[in-house]
């Protein structure tokens, strides 16, 4: 008799992560088939638009960052004269600076469980420069990407299924998965598609009250800004409403701010929730706030390095100790990722040798992302029965599919959700991989899919034409 995961005791079975779910597995199969038998499908290649993984689609890393990381990986070459011929002088200088902050210059050693102190100093200074309010290096916990930090907070907050966490719908399914894994309850609050995915404080209140009435103790509020999958950049008013709400209701504000460097519209700007809170006169005694940042997004897109941090403010020393304890069980996050997080929060400045090339690389990437966002948004809006809100930030478009009744019936007959049905058809016809909206949550009876803006710029015309052609055919088949 084998030991199996029994259905009754497993949170694991309940959790889902659509970004790497069924449609992706199918796409990988098709990719194998294409390799084995070219021409076996009506497309030459699979285009992965399912995941925010820029460097898998040929986005280049920032040269200065990689120079510093390479030198920190192999410090033995720092003394060699040949190194100066291969690396920029300021990269060499930064590598020395960083190595001097690491005891014994040992980048292979476990660090302090919150991360190397000197790197946290750098990050805190970067946060202060960004927000105009002080940041404490001891509030920083460096982690292998932002996801482990989210899990840590869920672990601390959730005691049982009676603990609820308010999450935006649609949301990045790390949150639903983490809440499920830790045995808690997701309390949804709906973003308003008609109002550019805006947030109404009354909606927050309504959902909080409904949860309380069901006996749920709501502990925290998750906000993703800029939004994933929705791409909106919250207005400052909205942000102030959220801060007031959390303060009044005694909720921990979990601010996912990993897309803070991805803003594509001139009339919006990223403001951290910490900045907003402090500007309202709220300090450590007024609001418990956790900010998540990552090296995976922005213009750096370093998903594979696994770097990130959470900045934790407004908790008692006792709770801070518990947070430290949880962090210490894992010993520490990978050092190279920690170094990268410090580079992201303290990049080359005007006057540095590498500044011009760094700046050109950064602007190149960001302006390209903005162009791709616009092109894809326009293309989606031109499709019959499709409306798509602007991607003000982040890396995704989340169009709404107003599917004809015939299509919905066909999906039902195929025992698939209508958006999954559409996504599957899209994949089979074009090789384009998107994630059905049900993976993120949506208002009941509405259908969406999430598509990244990441395919290389020169592939975008092909994406647009294939998608347009497919959609026309789909509507011809299912139009009422």
């Amino acid at each position: 008799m084998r030991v199996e995961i029994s259905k009754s005791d497993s949170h694991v079975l309940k959790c889902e992560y659509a970004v790497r779910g069924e449609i992706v597995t199918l796409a990988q199969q098709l990719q194998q088939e294409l390799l084995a038998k070219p021409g076996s499908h009506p497309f030459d290649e699979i285009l992965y638009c399912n995941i925010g993984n820029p460097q898998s689609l040929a986005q280049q890393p920032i040269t200065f960052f990689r120079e510093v990381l390479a030198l920190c990986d192999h410090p033995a070459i720092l003394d060699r004269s040949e190194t100066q011929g291969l690396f920029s002088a300021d990269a060499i200088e930064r590598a020395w600076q960083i190595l001097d902050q690491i005891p014994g210059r040992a980048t292979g050693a476990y660090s302090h469980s919150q991360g190397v102190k000197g790197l946290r100093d750098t990050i805190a200074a970067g946060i202060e420069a960004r927000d105009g309010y002080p940041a404490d290096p001891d509030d920083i916990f460096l982690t292998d990407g932002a996801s482990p930090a989210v899990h840590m907070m869920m672990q601390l907050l959730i005691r049982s299924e009676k603990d609820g966490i308010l999450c935006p719908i649609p949301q990045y399914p790390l949150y639903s998965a983490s809440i499920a894994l830790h045995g808690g309850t997701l309390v949804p609050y709906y973003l308003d598609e008609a109002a550019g995915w805006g947030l109404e404080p009354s909606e927050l209140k309504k959902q909080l009250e409904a949860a309380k009435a069901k006996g749920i103790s709501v502990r925290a509020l998750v906000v993703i800004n800029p939004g994933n999958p929705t791409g909106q950049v919250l207005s400052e008013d909205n942000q102030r409403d959220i801060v007031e709400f959390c303060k009044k209701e005694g909720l921990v504000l979990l601010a996912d701010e990993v897309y803070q460097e991805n803003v594509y519209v001139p009339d919006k700007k990223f403001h951290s929730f910490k900045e907003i809170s402090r500007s309202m006169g709220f300090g450590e005694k007024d609001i418990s706030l956790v900010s998540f940042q990552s090296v995976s997004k922005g213009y750096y897109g370093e998903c594979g390095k696994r770097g990130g941090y959470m900045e934790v403010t407004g908790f008692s020393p006792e709770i801070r100790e518990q947070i430290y304890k949880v962090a210490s069980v894992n010993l520490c996050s990978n050092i190279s990722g920690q170094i990268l997080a410090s580079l992201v929060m303290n990049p080359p400045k005007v006057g540095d040798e590498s500044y011009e090339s760094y700046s050109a690389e950064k602007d190149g990437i960001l302006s390209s992302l903005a162009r791709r966002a616009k092109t894809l948004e326009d293309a989606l809006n031109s499709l019959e029965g499709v409306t798509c809100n602007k991607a003000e930030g982040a890396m995704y478009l989340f169009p709404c599919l107003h599917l004809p009744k015939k299509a919905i019936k066909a999906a039902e007959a195929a025992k698939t959700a209508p958006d999954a049905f559409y996504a599957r058809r899209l994949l089979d016809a074009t090789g384009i991989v998107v994630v059905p909206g049900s993976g993120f949550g949506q208002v009941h009876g509405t259908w969406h899919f999430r598509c990244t803006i990441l395919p290389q710029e020169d592939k975008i015309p092909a994406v647009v034409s294939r998608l347009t052609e497919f959609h026309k055919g789909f509507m011809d088949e299912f139009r009422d």
Partner: protein
Amino acid sequence: MSAKGLDHDSINENVKRAQYAVRGELYLRASELQKEGKKIIFTNVGNPHALGQRPLTFPRQVVALCQAPFLLDDPNVGLLFPADAIARAKHYLSLTSGAGLGAYSDSRGIPGVRKEVAEFIQRRDGYPTDPELIYLTDGASKGILVPVPQYPLYSAAISLYGGSFVPYYLEETANWGLDIDNLRQSVAQARSKGITVRAMVIINPGNPTGQCLSEANLKEIIRFCHQENLVLLGDEVYQQNIYQDERPFLSSRKVLMDMGQPISKELQLISFHTVSKGYWGECGQRGGYFEMTNIPPETVDEIYKVASISLSPNIAGQIFVGLMVTPPRPGDISYEGFVRESKGILESLRRRAQLMTDGFNSCRNVACNFTEGAMYSFPQIRLPPKAIEAAKKAGKVPDVFYCLKLLEATGISTVPGSGFGQKEGVFHMRTTILPAEEEMPEIMGSFKKFNDEFMEQYDDHRGYSRM
């Protein structure tokens, strides 16, 4: 209204209960003293590079090149990097399909690296294994049978996830050996309390105890798990750290396969390995893997699903795993240097293991089993009743009291045995064998002076029989 979201009453109980002594009270006190300017020798955690062990050159060359692939286009790259490191970097970059270190890989790890791990396991054990059942990780959790003493990651993880820690005691007088009767007893006790025992952990070589399990022991354990329907979790992260020749490392998988069917096709086994230990000591990279044997496909799917939520382990760490399982071969440019570096480290560790064991055994009221493997020494400290009294008065667990005094007097930062579990009334201390060889005589001298003075102060000169 002050933020009430997370306070003493509302924090997850499992978190409050969890303990992780390796970075607990002693470590925090040592860090405080260090800030005040005292010289501290950190022997609390298996962190070789922090104590002066140099990284192996070849892997660092390869990963540096992967970090900055534009170097490969530079005609002068050969001035700084040997040809085989350049070739190997190109190899690993090609395995990432050109995306390099910056893109998420498959959640289970880069397929090419998983294949290299499978090939390594086949060479090591003589049995083929499926790369699909090998998952790379970011460094290496109902009722789980755990050896006592144990590496407190297990108790902490079990605590955090609300499981039940079911201890089975290793026999200190039998060189920390495993007694099957102890095991049976532990399981029976747990079951009588209504706990469903699901899995059993073995740490081989042991941490903190260092013992290397014999083939006979491993067979007994495997038969036991098979009979009792337990998943066997084999923590084998110290498999390169062997300091005696009587019991070389035998992987649980090899022994299982040697036992033939039906058990080789039925016993569920998960084996763990890492780049943090061995002679690599690359703790900061967070690279490792686990290999599954006879795990049902549905369970593998669930593990994959959970892995995918974390997207993927860091790519550089995965490459370190690849390099660890596929080191330079005879004939490679870097081979001789690599062998020299690795042998140097291993031979030094072996000498230090002996030095420390002998050093502890020369101290009053201290008895220390030989460190057969891993990275630690775990001497038993026979604390006199007067010392235990003093500890109680100070509000400290006796071995914590002893270790704090040791820290204040000598700067040596250890982990008290209570952090690992021990029999009631028996006390230990864990140190690593990692301080530099040149510093060992001074460190052991310093310890002996402290210990013998401590014992002089608290002893009542009656002597003890070994427990």
